[in-house]
């Protein structure tokens, strides 16, 4: 099970790295699109004329991506320990906590980016409230992040029980 988990985390990490490099590669050319903003650009002059909020939306979306990647990298480190069958280790506790914190941070930045995208629409005179999966993603990321932080605390407490037991023996 742990090997499958490691394989999945590695696959997601590689997929996201490819996505980020692809995005950066595409950026100077014609079209760039994130889940938050989608802009079609035909020339560099048009690129300069884009509103500031678009840039902010794109920059925040890249920051979200990078924060998520850092969180995933800490999770990758954790699984390396899991594979060695060492669960009660300080590094695992630290990595899980950091991973959770980065996931929560990315969820917060993502929420700000969604608010900016909403403000962009509002500045054009359209105000719309959409109940879709986009609202769920930041909340779900927060839940995942909190779960990892919680898991690190559970491990920390279990480790202290184990240390106590070992001392007693």
């Amino acid at each position: 099970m742990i090997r499958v988990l490691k394989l999945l985390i590695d696959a997601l990490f590689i997929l996201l790295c490819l996505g980020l490099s692809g995005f950066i590669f595409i950026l100077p050319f014609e079209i760039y699109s994130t889940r938050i903003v989608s802009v079609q650009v035909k020339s560099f002059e048009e690129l300069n004329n884009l509103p500031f909020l678009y840039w902010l939306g794109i920059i925040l979306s890249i920051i979200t991506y990078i924060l998520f990647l850092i969180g995933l990298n800490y999770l990758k480190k954790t699984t390396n320990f899991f594979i060695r069958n060492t669960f009660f280790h300080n590094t695992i506790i630290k990595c899980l906590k950091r991973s959770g914190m980065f996931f929560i941070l990315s969820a917060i930045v993502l929420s700000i980016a969604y608010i900016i995208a909403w403000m962009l629409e509002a500045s054009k005179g359209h105000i719309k409230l959409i109940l879709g999966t986009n609202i769920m993603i930041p909340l779900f990321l927060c839940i995942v992040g909190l779960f990892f932080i919680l898991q690190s605390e559970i491990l920390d407490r279990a480790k202290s029980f184990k240390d106590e037991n070992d001392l007693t023996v």
Partner: protein
Amino acid sequence: MKKIKLLNAMVIGLIVIFVMFFIGNIYLTFFSDFMNQFDHIYDDFVFGSSTKFIVLFISSLTFVGLIFIKKGLGVTLKNEVFNSKSSLSFVVAGYFFLLSGALGGVFNIISFIHSNGITGVASFGQDLLLVILSFILFIVVDIIKDGNELRLDSELTI
């Protein structure tokens, strides 16, 4: 306990959003003519007009998983972290997340191939995250069980 309470509140928030999402979708699909104007869109989809039902079914699996997470967290709030009751809820939640992530992944891959890459693979990452979360849940259950045994051991020693 504060973090568990916060997590519990967020899970409840997500459950509420899911319920609103389901009510909205059911109303628009079965009790309104609003969606008729978009019927032609489904012609291009690999599963045709069944697509919305497939997506709804996969979302409902995630929803059921969330309900079990809520149940597990409720038990944890009542009986401390290390207990034997919350594990079952987390395991069931893990299986639902695993099923939802796997089916969602298959659905997205089929859509990706059918659309010649137009749909992209962004959603596939979310499905993968759901599967990862399910495996993490299984590991959490193992740690809770081990921790519970260690706690009982140390209590017996005292």
